[in-house]
């Protein structure tokens, strides 16, 4: 039985005179893929930044599993199980692929200074677990052969996959993907769609997605919210949204 995981109500974000997000309202269930679409500048990423704790919303309530998270600093939001990727990939470019995944496990491993200096058995065990965990995700993403390379030297498609792996290794409950298909070729886009499906099914993670690629959005989402000028126009299943005249108007303009 699915229940509401993330609930956003009356979200407003004002930058000086600009009302970037105005009265946005939606909820994401714990087993669904929820997409936000809309023309450029509609305020999608701003919603993301508010939910992720990178902006402090002007008004509005955001709850995760009933617990209010608006106004929390972003690292605390992440610890509530809400982890995101970025529109332009933000890897630790000079660290190796493997180290990227180790850093992401920081909150789960033994970070005690003394036990690390003395290399106690507990410390070694925790490091080995972290390594094994990283290896598992590298295998899953099919990038294990690049484990010891610097992340910045990977092909763009692999960087995208690594960024998703880095999120997943923190064991999130809600994965937020900000335009994950941007810059990918058609084959990689199909792989991405498969990946999102698989993550949701195998790892009990809900997905909140911003995307411009319509075939991906329509193929992978359970529900879609359409935004324009900071306001939500409509929310519904893909087929409703596809035929909604207001959506068509927003994208193509009036004649």
């Amino acid at each position, binding site marked *: 039985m699915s229940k509401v995981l993330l609930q956003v109500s009356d979200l407003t974000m004002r930058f000086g005179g600009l009302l970037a997000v105005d009265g946005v309202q939606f909820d994401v269930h714990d087993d669904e893929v929820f997409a936000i679409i809309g023309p450029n500048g509609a305020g999608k990423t701003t919603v993301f930044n508010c939910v*992720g*704790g*990178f902006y402090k919303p002007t008004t509005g309530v955001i709850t995760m599993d009933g617990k209010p998270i608006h106004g929390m*600093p*972003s*690292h*605390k939001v*992440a*610890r509530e199980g809400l*982890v*995101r990727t*970025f529109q332009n990939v*933000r*890897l*630790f*470019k*000079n*660290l*190796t692929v*493997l*180290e*990227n995944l*180790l*850093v*992401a496990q*920081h*909150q789960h*491993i*033994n*970070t005690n*200074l003394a036990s*690390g*200096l003395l*290399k106690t058995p507990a410390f070694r065990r925790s*490091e080995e677990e972290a*390594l094994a965990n*990283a*290896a598992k995700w*590298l295998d899953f993403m099919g990038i*294990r*052969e690049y*484990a*010891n390379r610097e992340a910045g030297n990977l092909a763009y498609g692999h960087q995208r996959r690594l960024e998703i792996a*880095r*999120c997943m290794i*923190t064991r999130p409950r809600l994965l937020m993907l900000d335009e994950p298909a941007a810059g990918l070729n058609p084959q990689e886009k199909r792989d991405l769609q498969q990946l999102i499906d698989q993550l949701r099914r195998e790892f009990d993670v809900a997905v909140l997605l911003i995307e411009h690629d319509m075939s991906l959005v329509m193929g992978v989402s359970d529900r879609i919210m359409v935004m324009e000028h900071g306001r939500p126009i409509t929310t519904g299943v893909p087929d409703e949204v596809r035929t909604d005249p207001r959506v068509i108007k927003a994208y193509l303009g009036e004649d």
Partner: protein
Amino acid sequence: MVSHIKNALIAAVMAGVIIAPVFGLQIVRSGMQTHLEPEWDMVLMGMAIVFVFQAFVRPAFVKVMGRGERKFSMPVLNDTSRRAMIFLLIAIALIWPFFTGRAEVDIATLVLIYVMLGLGLNIVVGFAGLLDLGFVGFYAVGAYTYALLYHWAGWGFWEALPLAGAMAGLFGYLLGFPVLRLRGDYLAIVTLGFGEIIRLLLINLYEFTGGPDGISGIPKPTVFGMPMVRRAPEGETTFHEFMGWQFDNMDVIIYLYLMALVLALVTLFVSNRVIRMPIGRAWEALREDEIACRSLGLNPTNIKLSAFTMGATFAGFGGAFFAARQGLVNPESFTFLESALILAIVVLGGMGSQVGVILAAIVLTVLPEVAREFAEYRMMIFGLVMVVMMMWRPQGLLPMKRPHVELKQ
């Protein structure tokens, strides 16, 4: 060949320009008067050497080296031979002072203090990427902690040492708390101010710290509770009496050297381990991308604070040792120039590279001592070294080679 000659001519002229102010304008004092006495033959000779080298020696050298596409590379050491190498180096460092002169050991002790400070600052600047221009403030806190504890409460070095580190660490923590949300240049300015505040406080709290006069008569560290002095205070046995030796000042100097060596090795060990630990990885990740770190649940403030505190703690240890060695502390020792020197050590060595920092500490401490005869040109040489480094090796003497955790395929 023609191009070689042309290159060599340009190089020779450049060399002349550089050498001329040094040798060309010798100031000679005769009686009450001073006058310039240019030594043009020296300048010409220098230019000639550069010319010959550039025109003939270097092309020949390149020709020989270029044959067979051979390139020099550092020998790669495996783990066992590296360990053997380290032990050998430590052994040499341990034995060496017994076979050399007093001045050499003294300089070596100074080098070791700077190694300790350099490695401490390396944690902050090299690993965590936080530009700290007030590092000497923590050094001063450490030194004055021992000095004041001795002056007001009669504490000995060994009792005061942990507290000196802790105190400097505490100052690092307290300063870090409000300022670590600043970035880059802003952080540098605030830390610079902090270093100055500490110094000015030390000058102005006259009643407490002795102001500009500082505190003197600070005792040297004891050996297992036995002081190393010629005549023992009432009821105490000195170390040389205990051993049945004649008192020799050299023993004290060697003892201080060995202690500095131990402290520097501890610093090296800790910073070397820490960078391989989760916290070290978090420092590096934070240096790369703070927003990504936050999005993964890492608390940037805590991580930066840990780097700042740890760096400051090592500076505190260094400071306490410095106070014990000098026997005298005053605010003059903790000026901004000192911060700049420590930072120069880190940058020159290659940010984040521990071996590089050690090497740079040696270069920057020994060079001025060696060049004492032309002390007037010390700053010029120092500047020249810096300029040359930034032109040809901006990444430092031995750039950081990150310790990778490898995943076996």
